[in-house]
């Protein structure tokens, strides 16, 4: 089983990376781009657990380690491969 965990900066928090990338996209002529926000995407492979339990444990991993609740939000999707 695999899970894809997305960690993004909370709305409202400054995203210097996204800002810089947006600027250079403009300089490259991609004026249609109005905003860029950059986050992490983690591909987690898990040994066989019942789906529900896997989801509970993933939530715990995010709260504990994968995301920083003070400045980041997260969501994840579990899928079989």
């Amino acid at each position, binding site marked *: 089983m695999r899970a894809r965990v997305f960690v993004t*900066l*909370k709305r*409202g*928090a*400054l*995203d*210097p990376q996204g*800002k*810089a990338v947006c*600027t250079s996209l403009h300089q490259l002529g991609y004026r249609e781009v109005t905003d860029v926000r950059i986050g992490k995407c983690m591909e987690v492979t898990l040994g066989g657990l019942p789906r529900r339990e896997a989801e509970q444990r993933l939530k715990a991993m995010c709260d504990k380690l994968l995301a*920083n609740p*003070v*400045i980041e939000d997260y969501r994840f999707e579990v899928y079989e491969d």
Partner: protein
Amino acid sequence: MSRDPEVTRDLALQHGMTTEEYDHAIEVLGRPPSYTELGIIAVMWSEHCSYKSSRIHLKTLPTEGPRLVQGPGENAGIVDVGAGIVAAFKMESHNHPSYIEPHQGAATGVGGILRDIFTMGARPIASLNSLRFGSLDHPRTRYLVGGVVTGIAGYGNSIGVPTVGGEIYFHPSYNGNILVNVMSLGIARRDKIHKGIAAGPGNPVIYVGSRTGRDGIHGASLLASSEFDAESETKRPTVQVGDPFTEKQLLEACLEAMKETGLVVGIQDMGAAGLTCSTLEMAARAGTGMEIELDRVPLREAEMTPYEIMLSESQERMLLVATPQTEARVRAIFDKWDLEASVIGRVTDTGRVLVRAGGRVVADVPAASLADDAPRYQRPSARPAWQDTVQDLQLDAVPDPADGNAALLALMTSPNLCSRQSIYQVYDHMVRSNTVVRPGSDAAVIRLKGTERALALTVDCNSRYCFLDPIEGARLAVAEAARNLACSGAVPLGVTDCLNFGNPEKPEVMWQFIQSIQGISEACRAFETPVVGGNVSFYNETEGKGINPTPTIGMVGMFEDVRSAMTQWFRREGDLVFLMGEGEPSIAASEYLAVVHGREAGRPAAVSLAREKALHDAVRAARNGGLIASAHDCSEGGLAFTLLECCITGPEGAVGAEIRIEGKGRLDALLFGEAPTRIIVSAAPEGRARLEQLALGYEVPVRLLGKVGGSRLTIAAAGGGSVDDLETAPARAAWIGALKNHLAS
């Protein structure tokens, strides 16, 4: 735009104001404040911005000196370092934000102090930091250390200012309140200094740098001006995220603008309390007023209220006053650096800051009375009842070991004495290619390109001393800073301090604070080092538990000739080892007592400032006379540990030494007892007579301890046989690896 809440006494209290302060505000305005005005006044009169509990005491600090160019009152203090160059430096705390989000908190702390420096027209060339964390077994400590260190590194490395020194201590009193004090120093040509003044009615007020978001609203007023409790969570503002890249652009653009004569009239960073603080302070300093159009402030988020815009603490922003003639040129420079610069208002002669938004006046307040006539409190102070208890130490109750090896090994790998290499290695301490003495010696040394000169920098504070005896602890902190500079060969020029304390509304805390200021004042007078600026951080208290009083001292010194710079480690086989100075070493208040016997009690040995100064002069003279090869401050860990450091701290590896120490009394006091006014030097045998001659001239005792050589450090006591004997190479490895192990979860 959302409608403002109605201003009531209750709302004022929620803003951290007292009833009296609210009445005073109404008096100053001649009417009740609007919502935006309430926010402005609350933040200006917050402890962090107004220094209401500390001002009257800070006034007693010595701020005069032959080399002083700018004392307290500006964004940073300035001293003359010769050759037409001045050095601007300052230390600031970012304690509360760093506890909430260690990485960003520390990063934006670095960003803030750097702005304080380049706002003066000085280019930052070195940073230091003084960090205090809780005990290693506290669940949050490792996380906080990791975050703070990467935060400092991430910002400082990126912007290209070397982090050349600092200190880190672990102590349970910081479990709920870590300390992140950052110091920075910059240099400028003497005739290019700038100040935070809004002079010249009619002049344009220009906002430059990042856009304004809802970052850290109430960061200063609520976070740094009240204790932590469960509620802090809910009070928590949007965490400020540092953007070192934008700050680097801002730094270059500001310096370029300030280099052109007459372009910039006044400039100030938007730090704590952002637009509010900068507009009011700049107008107040110039005795002018300002008219501000909030509609012209570049915003990052839609629908921000005037209240939010005035109180936002978004980073990487500056407020700048130009002239109608230079406005265009200023814009051009910021445009070159891809930064926004927008004229948000004009300087007036009304003495008031008038703020408009959407065509209506949202605030109209008198600048001077809010900035300068903020409330000042002579808070009650009282010596804690427990002070006598902690100072009382029954020595005979403490066992005196027969030999020192076990204790020396324990000290060597203890969290507060082991090597900091694994930390300072993640800081770029070499960028700008000026670093002559890197982290790892008593003081860092930075050469000044284009001259023969160099500067030495150090930060020091032993908060255990300060806890056990606040006034002596403060004197000792200044003395140690000066001693560290002397060991590097430098002459001290000035001091910046960062005074970290608990809740000032508690008489015991206020007593600790007043005692510390008195101690700093006495010592700074003795070393002729004016306090050119600094910072006060109160309310370092969680659930009623306060930190050890921690008055961090940052001291800057100078070399006329960079080649006289010195390091602490032994350099040559066969050199003689001497102890210069003297002091009655005692295990009271010592690191040894804490590490080996698990006790923190007694009074730190008192320092005679006159004898301390004489010692420093003697060591400098010996260096300049080419008589000594190394000098090391003998402080925490005592004589034995200091000797070990002389053997193992050199970058090229370990050396050995054969030592014989005289002295009566306890063996552990002899080996690990602490006392000020002691420096270990190494010197070529030929120079011995001249060294002793020279010391005599300064009435400084100098005692031969032994000789550098071999691969072991052996210490023999006059009485018995060898009391310490170890291979230095493995010791060095253990000493270097210890901190990583402590921090490995």
